[in-house]
């Protein structure tokens, strides 16, 4: 039976088959196939959730190795494993809506998630302060446009410089939008071609075939 799992052709056929099942019913009226495809998406969603086990397993293994070999900072790994296990146990026994679980979420997860998201404001300002220098005419255009929009966006500006609105909106709504649109058009063809290469068996690294071939 192992030939079935090892054969590159068979795996590729599976890929192409399920691709077609999802793809074709959109273009031709065939309700039974569409229903079948819908069910397959539910299966795929479940399959994805199974893989968390491997990811967590590899995290455990990595941390255990740190602890066993007493590498720098190994104590943090002990802390990691204990806290993680504790929370998983609470989750499975008491449930996600229990106070203890919610307490951990609101004390650790929500503030830190906000920190690492909010910290972007700092990185954006430093990137801006560092990169917005008129090294070339192109960069000068970037800076002028950036500053006009920045000025407009400060709500106070509207009060003493109302004339800035049309210029800023021209930049964001027309140029910004044109950029978005060009991006969408350019990238989709690239993406489709890439998918095409995969379906034709050219970019198959993702199935892990290189190893067997060696």
């Amino acid at each position: 039976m192992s030939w079935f799992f090892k054969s590159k052709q068979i795996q590729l056929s599976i890929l192409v088959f399920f691709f077609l099942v999802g793809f074709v019913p959109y273009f031709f009226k065939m309700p039974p196939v569409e229903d079948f495809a819908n069910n397959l998406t539910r299966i795929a969603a479940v399959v994805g959730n199974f893989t968390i086990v491997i990811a967590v397993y590899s995290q455990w293994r990595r941390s255990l190795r740190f602890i066993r070999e007493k590498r720098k900072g190994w104590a943090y790994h002990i802390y990691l494993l204990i806290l993680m296990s504790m929370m998983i146990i609470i989750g499975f026994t008491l449930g996600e809506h229990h106070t203890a679980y919610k307490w951990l979420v609101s004390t650790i997860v929500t503030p830190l998630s906000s920190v690492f998201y909010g910290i972007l404001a700092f990185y954006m300002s430093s990137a801006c302060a560092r990169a917005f220098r008129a090294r070339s005419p192109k960069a000068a255009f970037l800076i002028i446009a950036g500053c006009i929009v920045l000025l407009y966006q400060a709500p106070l500006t509207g009060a003493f410089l109302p004339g800035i609105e049309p210029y800023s909106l021209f930049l964001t709504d027309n140029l910004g939008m044109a950029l978005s649109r060009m991006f969408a058009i350019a990238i989709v063809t690239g993406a489709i071609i890439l998918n095409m290469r995969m379906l034709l068996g050219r970019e198959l690294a993702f199935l892990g075939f290189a190893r067997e071939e060696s």
Partner: protein
Amino acid sequence: MAKPLLEIPIIPTGRFIGLVLLVILAILAIRQMRAKKMPFIRRVAALDAIDDAVGRCTEMGRPVVVSYGIGDFSYSVIAALSILGYVAKICAETDTRLIVPTGGGHSSYVVRETAVDIVRSQYILAGKPETFREEDMPFLSGEQYAYTSGYTGILIRERPGATIMTGSHASEAVNIAEQSNLVGAITITSGTYVSNMAALACASDYIMLMDEQPAAGAYLSKNVDQIATIRVQDIYKALAMVLIVVGLVLMTVFKSDLILRLLDT
């Protein structure tokens, strides 16, 4: 929506032209794959910079950090996995340490396994399976910003010589690029949406713009048949330009919505 040019009974309204475009695209791609002669292709600075960046890490004895994003299999992730494979190959050959932060999204678990496989196989192919270290591909949870905190933690501690961050990174990309900059690493990135790209263009040393990323696998493979497919991308861009120009002229001068109707067919 404009009235379609024609209705075909077995095809839902408005979907015919999409199908036609996809079929033509497939045919063109297959034709291009048979190409024998290397086509002209403009240099992509960000991709060419990869070799130098990894070389710099080897010389300085510093690791190189590569990531492929936090999302499900999408074109950008697949392209980034090709880049990962390419870097892993150089790293395996030159004994440069490779660190790949993984995780970051709930749909990225499957991708993680694939990435591990890709890197491991490059070490096997280079004849050095014993130098592959899976612990250098840490799983940093399935939560975007926990991943980011882990990622920036790695950058601060390991002080890599280069960070190659491609694939489906979202808002955390600027976070990582700036931190990478702060620790003095050469930063090569790509954006998957416009605002990200604008910010990364300022924050990184090299950036893959627009469709340079999906073309990366083909570009780096240096295979004639793969590079030739990039031409199809250009043909479709040209097609888009022609449709827009003709459509605008017909609409404005002749008050005809022919192109709109064609597109809604």
